[in-house]
Each structure stands twice: as structure tokens, then as C-alpha cells.
């Protein structure tokens, strides 16, 4: 064989090897999946943009994780998202024995998806797991209040709080699903993520991490659950990162439901007769945070007149009406208006450029000043705000980063001024927002002792009247001093097939067990 022939053979060999390699590798990616057609085969096809972490709820802090949690698992009690009423779920009834003791009479005859019977042992094991340190669980804040759990008999269990915790029932109703004791001990978070087992209205039949989850209605779901028996046979969730691709799939009938559709796209989709588009408020609020305490060093925002000037300088209504749109609304208090304890009877700062300039001049900044502003999302909302600030002479250097880096900077005393948002974890209580930023913790840039004391009082009792009064005091002082400029509530645009009968709730937790076909 000549040298030239050798080279030719070698080149051909390389080409053949590359093609074979590609075929072998590609073959594993080509696993067939059934064609799904929504109502026709009783499968609700949904998509969202974010890869879901481990499905094990306690190792998952995403909103989509909350949605999945409610489908697969049940909590002891249930809170009606429309009326706020608490009802028994895995517990037939419950009693608040005293400020720190909750007693639950459990339903009998409830089984997990793997056939394991549910009883008090599962409740105690779940709580014990949550109280075990160093498991790496991410759900810390919703369980940190628990002292322990005790089974009084097979179907009676008590959960003890370390101290009076106003949010205890809310956490128990949403954030503490019950796991099968024996199964979880055997498979742990890894196994639970791959093949979740709960008591909920849907069981998982397939998980491809980050890509898709297939749910099937739990035919054995117990009678009497306030979640009701699921009306739709299957739910197929896919992760489609690009919203435009989601929209094409929805309009071409391959998806039945998407959410977080941008306002301009939602308005266009609403004109299509085959689709139903709904904008619903969420508990997320936007705000400007000032370093009033001077934690980042001397800065103009230590002067209340400057903070008030900023508050007057920004036309929040114009931004909401023209850019944020949907169900969003301007807010004036450091909380979501429908949270328990939130009051809007506080000092309000109307848009008034002249007043803003006068306040700046009074504070010694007649020509304005330059400041850093930190932010991590919604640049399209931020840019007009910076434009409004420029009108009164406040020029900004934008530090735009990831959420974790921005929050770290705030906590490390590097931030004089920030545009941030807060979702309260969908907890409908002021205690899930105001104390975080004004309770004296690392995010408190106001460090107002009067506010801190009022919030501590509101958070240490379960008496609604005392709590409301305490939060009134705190929120009025926060607004009067303009420690924050509350901006607006956020909204989520949902787009769905006209075949689907489903209504969103203000807590931004889609409950597909209530969905049905028209």
C-alpha cells in the first residue's frame, strides 16, 4: 500500500468513525415519546422556562417547586387561597392548644402513592428530618420555628413551636408536606427527586431532571380533601426556556398552558380566539431601598429629605401603566396590600418634580448628586426610573448583577441605593416581608429601633389585634421616614387554551388539581 493510499484510507476511516460515533451518541437522545394532544387525550400540557431542581420539596426553593409540591404531596392543613380559611387536609381536624402547641387528628385510610399507609409516624419522621441539622435542606425558614413533634397515638400528633409563631399555620398549610417515613428513610432526597412519593392528587410517572415531568391523577386520592379529586387525567410538564418558543407551541396547540408571558406578548395573544389570557397579581413587590443608616458609609440617603425627594421624583403610575401593565398596581406601604397586617393608610409621595428639587436643595444638593444603584432584575423598569432621577439631578452608576451577588453586597454594607423585589414566598402575612428589611437583620438598612420594636411585637404574638396595631405603627413610621420607596406589585400573565377551565390565584401558585376541561 502506497503512502498516499494509506492517508486516503485513514481520512476515510476518520470520517466513518465520526459518523458512527455521532449515530451512537445521538441514538440515546432519540427516545420516542407519545404525541400528546391536550383535551383530546385528557393530558394537560404545560411549560415553564426554568429547569426544576430536585423535585424533593425540601431541596427546592423555586416557585415551580411549590407548584409541583402541591400536586404530589399534601400538608396537614389547607388554606383556601380565595377565602383565607384553614381546613383540614391530611388532618381531619386541628386545634391550637396554646400559643406553641398544635394538635392534629389525622385522617385514616390515606395512603401514599407507593401504598404505604399514612399515620402519625410519618408526621413525626418528617418533622424529625426537618430538625436534623446538616442535611443540606434548603427549606430552613419555614421550619426553623418548630421545636418538635410527638405522636399521641397512631392518628393524633402534636407539633410544638419554640415560641409563639404567627405564621405557623401558614407554614403548616403550604410549606411542610408529609413524606412517607419508611420510603424516605430508604431512598433519601436523591430517590425522592427521581421518583417522588406523596399522598397528593397527582402521582409522578416520569421525571427527566430539568426537562419534563409526567403526572397522572391519583385514582386513590382520599375523599373529603379540600383539593378535590383531580378532573384531568394527566399533566405533562416541559421546560422550554424561550418564551417565544413556548408561544409558538401554545398557538400551534402543542401546549395548553404557559405563564410569565411578557405584557406585550400577552396583549397580542389575547387577540387570538383559541386562547384565553389572564393577568393576575402576585405577592411580589418592587421597591427602592435606601441606606438610611449609612451602613455603606456616608451617603446622601441618610438625609430623609433626599429619600423623600427620590420618592417624589419617580412617576410610578406612568411606569405601571405603560411598562409593567397587567394587574400590577402602585403601592405605598412596605408590604403587599392583601397581606395580613398591611396598611395603606401611610404617608404617600405623589409624583412632583418641583417638590423633589426643592427637597434636594433643602438637603444641600441643589444640583443633585451621583450615586451607585444596585439591581438584579427588570432592567426595563429600572431604566425609566433612572431617567426620572436624572430629571432632578440624581445621576446613577448602575451595578447590575445576579441576585445572590446583589444581596451579598447589601448584606456586606456596600450598597447605598438599590432596586429590589420581594415575593414573601407567597405568605399572606406582613411578617413574611417587613421584618426581613426593618427587623434589625442583615437586610435592614434603616436600623430604626422604634420600627424594630413594633415588628418584634407583631411577630411574637398570635393575637390579630395586637399584631395589626404593631404593624400599623411600623409601616407608618417606615413610610413617614421614606426608608423605602415601595413601587408596585408584580403580575403574572397566564396564557392557556380555550379548552381549559382554570383560574389563577393571587399567591401565584397554580393549582392544577382544580383545573378541568370545558
Amino acid at each position, binding site marked *: 500500500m502506497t503512502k498516499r493510499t494509506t*492517508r486516503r484510507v485513514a481520512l476515510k476511516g476518520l470520517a466513518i468513525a*465520526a*459518523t458512527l*460515533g*455521532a449515530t451512537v*451518541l*445521538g*441514538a*440515546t*437522545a*432519540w*427516545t*420516542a*415519546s407519545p404525541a400528546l394532544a391536550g383535551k383530546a387525550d385528557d393530558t394537560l400540557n404545560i411549560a415553564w422556562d426554568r*429547569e426544576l*431542581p*430536585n423535585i*424533593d420539596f425540601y*431541596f427546592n*426553593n*423555586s416557585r415551580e417547586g411549590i407548584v409541583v409540591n402541591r400536586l404530589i404531596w399534601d400538608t396537614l392543613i389547607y388554606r383556601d387561597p380565595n377565602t383565607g380559611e384553614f381546613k383540614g387536609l391530611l388532618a381531619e381536624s386541628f386545634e391550637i392548644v396554646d400559643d406553641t402547641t398544635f394538635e392534629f387528628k389525622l385522617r385514616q385510610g390515606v395512603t401514599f402513592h407507593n401504598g404505604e399507609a399514612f399515620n402519625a409516624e410519618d408526621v413525626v419522621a418528617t418533622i424529625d428530618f426537618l430538625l436534623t*441539622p*446538616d*442535611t*443540606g435542606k*434548603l427549606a*430552613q*425558614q*419555614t421550619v*426553623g420555628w418548630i421545636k418538635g413533634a410527638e405522636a399521641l397515638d397512631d392518628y393524633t400528633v402534636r407539633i410544638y413551636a419554640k415560641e409563639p409563631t404567627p405564621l405557623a399555620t401558614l407554614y403548616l398549610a403550604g410549606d411542610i408536606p408529609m413524606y412517607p417515613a419508611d420510603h424516605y428513610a430508604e431512598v433519601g*432526597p*436523591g430517590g425522592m*427527586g*427521581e421518583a417522588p412519593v406523596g399522598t397528593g392528587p397527582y402521582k409522578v410517572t416520569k421525571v427527566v*431532571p*430539568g426537562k419534563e415531568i409526567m403526572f397522572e391523577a391519583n385514582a386513590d386520592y382520599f375523599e373529603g380533601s379540600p383539593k378535590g379529586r383531580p378532573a384531568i387525567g394527566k399533566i405533562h410538564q*416541559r*421546560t*422550554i*426556556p*424561550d418564551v417565544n*418558543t413556548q408561544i*409558538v*407551541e401554545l*398557538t*400551534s396547540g402543542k401546549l395548553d398552558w404557559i405563564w410569565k408571558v411578557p405584557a406585550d406578548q400577552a396583549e397580542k395573544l389575547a387577540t387570538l380566539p383559541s386562547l384565553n389570557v389572564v393577568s393576575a397579581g402576585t405577592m411580589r413587590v418592587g421597591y427602592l431601598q435606601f441606606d438610611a443608616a449609612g451602613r455603606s458609609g456616608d451617603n446622601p440617603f441618610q438625609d430623609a429629605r433626599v429619600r423623600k425627594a427620590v420618592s417624589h421624583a419617580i412617576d410610578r403610575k406612568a411606569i405601571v401603566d405603560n411598562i409593567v401593565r397587567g394587574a400590577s398596581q402602585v403601592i405605598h406601604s412596605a408590604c403587599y396590600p392583601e397581606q395580613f397586617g398591611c396598611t395603606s393608610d401611610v404617608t404617600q409621595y405623589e409624583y412632583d418634580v418641583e417638590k423633589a428639587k426643592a427637597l434636594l436643595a433643602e438637603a444641600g444638593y441643589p444640583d443633585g448628586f451621583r450615586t451607585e444603584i444596585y439591581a438584579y432584575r427588570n432592567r426595563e423598569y429600572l431604566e425609566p426610573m433612572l431617567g426620572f432621577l436624572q430629571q432632578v439631578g440624581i445621576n446613577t452608576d448602575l451595578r447590575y*448583577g*445576579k*441576585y*445572590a*451577588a446583589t*444581596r*451579598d453586597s447589601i*448584606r456586606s454594607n456596600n450598597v447605598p441605593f438599590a432596586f429590589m423585589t420581594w*415575593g*414573601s414566598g407567597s405568605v399572606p402575612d406582613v411578617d*413574611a416581608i417587613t421584618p*426581613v428589611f426593618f427587623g434589625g*437583620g*442583615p437586610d435592614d438598612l434603616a436600623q430604626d429601633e422604634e420600627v424594630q420594636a413594633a415588628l418584634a411585637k407583631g411577630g411574637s404574638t398570635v393575637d390579630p389585634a395586637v399584631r395589626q396595631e404593631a404593624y400599623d405603627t411600623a409601616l407608618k413610621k417606615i413610610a413617614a421616614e421614606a426608608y423605602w420607596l415601595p413601587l408596585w406589585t408584580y403580575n403574572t400573565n397566564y396564557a392557556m387554551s380555550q379548552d381549559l377551565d382554570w383560574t389563577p390565584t393571587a399567591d401565584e401558585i397554580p393549582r392544577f388539581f382544580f383545573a378541568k376541561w370545558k
Partner: protein
Amino acid sequence: MLLYTAKRILLAILVSLTVSALVFSLLYLSGDPATALAGERASQADIMAIKAAYGFDQPVYIQYFKWLAGALQGEFGESVYFRMPVIDLIVDRLPVTMMLGVSAMIFALALSIPLGVLAAMYPNSLIDRAALLLAVVGQALPSFWFALMLIVLFAYWVPILPASGSDSWQHFVLPTIVLGYYATPAFMRLTRTGLLDVLSSDYVRTARAKGLSPAKVLFKHALRNAIIPVVSLAAVQFGFMLTGSIIIETVFALHGAGFLAWESISRSDFPTVQAVLLLFSWFYIILTFLADLLNAWLNPRIRVA
């Protein structure tokens, strides 16, 4: 040749170690992973607990060396986001990226080499201009826009291909066109230039003078020599296709390794980012290395470099 190969292997190892250390440091600069994992509701105490549980409370260099020690033994650790072995994630995602990369490369070569040959055979003709136009358009079109246009055309207006997913070969058609088309201009122009040079060389003139048919002159004598630089470019472009397909994987919801790396950065999922990027850097290194060897083999003068 042996010394040359040894030098290249040593260099490849050094590059891959540098890439891995750089990535580790950059990720830490972009924010505390415990804060990212804990979510917005977490208190400082919660974040400290997560730091301790995941080992983020140790000095960065210790974390890095621990990871490196594991990686050298084939242990890439567990994804802090998915709570599953990183290697399983990669095994799940890599075939999609490989499939896309290989099919896009085949598409690009199948389109660009004939075009380059035609353009060289008829320089400054209408064919040459048309090929040039195609090349300019391919280079100028933003991939995400081109991808969306194809989706609207073939998944909505004329619904013959799926818009997202990776379940069948049909799912790869549109992404292959987008990714392959972007690489086409470079191949096409290189083929054209190389062929024009070769066609005016003495040995081609001699071949013609010997009375060989134009096809034999073109394919047996000219093209085989003109295509050598394309080999080097193909190696680099293939690396790009494997690692640079993030936008295309995002738009078509392909969930390949590129998309996994991109998402893992925003999630501060260190073990996953490290493993995928290390893998990608190896791809680049191995492909460049193979191209170097191939070129050295084809052209002995390179070996002394």
C-alpha cells in the same frame, strides 16, 4: 513526531488545569453560592447552615483542590441544584449536544464545500457572487432571530417540524440548519480561496497538460490539497458547535450540555459548571490536538514548530 505529540499533550493538560481554576475563581466572584441556593427568603443563619452543609464555608482553594482531587479520580461530585451525580447529568445531556454538533457540521460541510468549489471554478461570476451573498447573510444573521424565523415558518405557518424538544430526528432539523448555516461562510470562503490558489499552481497546469479530464484535475489533484486548511478550521468550528450552541439549545428547548452549563452558572451549581466546562475544554484541546497531528502528518514542515 513523538516529541511533538508529548509536548502537545503536556500543553493540553496545562490548558485544561488553567481553565478549571479560572472557572472556579470566576464563579466565586459572581456571588455566594449558598445565597443563590438558599433563595430570597433565607435568613443569614439559613445561609450559614447551607454553607456548612455543602462545604462552602471552607476556603476557596481547599474547595477547588478537593474538587480537583475528585475529578482526577473520575468523581465529579453531585450537582447542588439537582442533587444527583454530575456525571449522570452529563451522560443525559451530552448526546443532544453531540447530535446537534455533528449534524450541524455535516450540514455546514455539505453546503459550503460544493459552494466553495463552484465559486472557485467560476470566479467573479454570478455563481461566485451568489455564494458570497449566502456567506455574508449566514455570518450576519443573529442565530436567535434566524431560529425564531424558522420556528414560525416550519412549526406554525407550515407545521411540518416540531419547535422544541429532542425526542426524534425531526427535532434536530431546524437547530441543525441554524447552527450549521452560521459555520458555512468560513468553510465556503476557505475552500474557494484554497482552490483558487491550487488551481493556478504548476502541478495543476501540468495535470491539465497531461490531458486529464477537468473533473479528475479538480477532485483528484486540486481539491484534496485545497481542503487541508479546512481540516484545521473544522476542528475549531466543531468545538464551537459543541460549546457555542447555548442559544440554539435554549430557543429549541434541546437541554444539551451547553444549556446545562449556562443555566448552572446562573444557579451557582459549581460541580456541574466545573465538570461541563472541563469537558468542553477537553473537547477543544483534543480537537485542536487532532487537527495539529493531522496537519503535521500531512505537512511534515509543521512538526518542527
